[in-house]
């Protein structure tokens, strides 16, 4: 069975490109456009890894991580965002995120590589 990846991000263009790349490599990709949708999708699909954006309408990435921590859900999370102050990155690490990728510094292929590395851990 192919591994499941959940992308929680409100940027339509990027999400589309990323899904393209990931599906090419044989992953099953699910999409949510904000934190609320994201939490629902996690409970429904139980993904193997989550690619999480921070700045989203309705509910942002940090709130999602806090919720998951509260509920004890331990799916590996990689933050894929355009923000990234050291304080935030630190906090994310404390909340259990495995990595923080800034979108302008990584392209879809590199994100794919990180995902594969993480999934194979």
């Amino acid at each position, binding site marked *: 069975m192919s591994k499941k990846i959940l992308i929680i991000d409100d*940027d339509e*263009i*990027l999400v589309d*490109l990323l899904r393209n790349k990931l599906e090419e490599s044989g992953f099953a990709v699910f999409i949510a456009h904000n934190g609320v949708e994201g939490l629902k999708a996690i409970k429904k699909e139980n993904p193997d890894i989550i690619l999480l954006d921070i700045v989203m309408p309705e509910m942002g990435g940090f709130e999602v991580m806090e919720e998951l921590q509260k509920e004890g859900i331990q799916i590996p999370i990689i933050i894929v*965002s355009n*923000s990234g102050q050291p304080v935030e990155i630190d906090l994310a690490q404390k909340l259990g995120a495995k990595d923080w990728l*800034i979108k*302008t510094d990584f392209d879809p292929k590199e994100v794919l590589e990180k995902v594969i590395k993480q999934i194979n851990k």
Partner: protein
Amino acid sequence: MKTMNQERTKSEELATIKEDLSGAKKYIDDLTNFLPVSFLVVNPLHIILEANPFFVNISGYEEMDVVGFDIEEFFLEKKELKLFKKKILSGRSDKNEIELTFTKKNGEQFPAFVSAFVRKDKKGKVFGYFLTITDITDSKKFNERIEEIVSQKTKELESKNREIAESRLALMNILEETDEAWKNAEEEKEKTISIIANFTDGLLVFDKNDCLNMGNPKAEKFLRTNINNLIGTHLKDLNGSSLVKSIVEVLLKNEAFKKDKKSVAKVKAAHREEVKTGDGQTLEVSAVPIIAGKTSIGTLVSLHDITREKMIEAMKSEFVSIAAHQLRTPLSGIKWTLKMLIDGDLGKISKDQKEILEKTYVSNERMISLVNDLLNVTRIEEGRYIHKPEMVNILDIVEPLVESYKAEAERKGIKLNLETTKKRNLNVAADIEKITLVAQNLLENALKYTPKGGKITFFVKHKVKANKIEVSVKDSGVGVPKDQQARLFTKFFRAANVMRMETEGSGLGLFICKNIIESHGGEIWFDSEENKGSTFYFTLPIVTEKEFEEFKKKL
């Protein structure tokens, strides 16, 4: 019979009277002979009739020498004597006195006190006088001497009086000056008190024993405690609100409050720390020693409200964060789209199309780089740049970095080499990401500004004496013109010759590098000659475990 008896009685009486008279005469003779006063008997014509032995003694004349002579023969002051004679003969007073000068037989003279006692008959007519002459030489000398002494003493007294008067004047002057100085001091004191009382920051003054001496109204307002109750209390015993406790905690760690007041006096900069008041305010607490001579006689603590500054800082931080995010969103969109087009993920493209897309991609990357640089600069200026120091071997940073650029160097036809010191365990305290950034920046610059066929060598040397690692990147590229060299590490600077080359670079790279290296306790510099090449150097101090711990504390 009766007559014979009467005659017998008369002659007996006469004899008795004769006896008495001669007895009386003898008495007088004896008296005048032994009298220790010159005694002359003088007739109304002022002729000496008799002179006593004492006269002979003091005058040098024998009695026979002077009898029959006028008394004026023997005295100097003829005129005065004449008047005296008249006075005596006038009989007005029985006793007359005068001071004259007597000339002795041998010519010597002496001052004499002359006293004349007038002899009158029964009818009151003057028939002569007694003259006594007393040598008052000694008396006079004595008087003169006394007068001299008195005069001298008087002079001395006057002199002393003058001195005293002068001293008094001087004292008055000093008093006046002191008075004025005191008035000035009072004025200054009033000024200072006024300044302190109205100062917009809270001020607390501690004495040399670290006990609270005074606090101004603003300090009272901040601390929400009655300062008067705390005067004289030692810093560690200060009580009040929890804010007071927090501030005390901060101050106890402050260098200005250390025990050795002489070394405290050397503390130049005020150490500042932020304390939150608990109701939305933030205070900056700083302490600086008050110095007299070479030691600290007290400490001045200032409480500065930085609530507004913190708010602005937070707003700025938020703005930068949002701006970065907003700028990056479209840029990442473009980057990803272009990348996937170039990689052929979105369909087949022609060679020409690929070329154009690649150029656009590079251009976009430059934009991304600029946004990153701007973000970093803002963070440097807020002082929150270095985040994660670790003890690391410099070679573990440099070796993989150079390896990763070998391919690109080959593509550009440049020879890239790494030469390192033989020693392996040279540890530096470094934020790995940041130091990598610096090395990378220097290497990328070298690659950018060296033309095809050139050479770049990356050196890592151990400077034993300075106990530092020196990393240098030497290229054979375009170099930096002399007139541009001074400003190379400043913000937004790009040398003129580079601008002409149209290479990427925001101009922020070296500024950021300088900042990173210097906050690691190292130095960064370069040598360069136009068209010959440049060598960029940076050093980092080698640290032991202990030094690393201290370095972490400082950050």
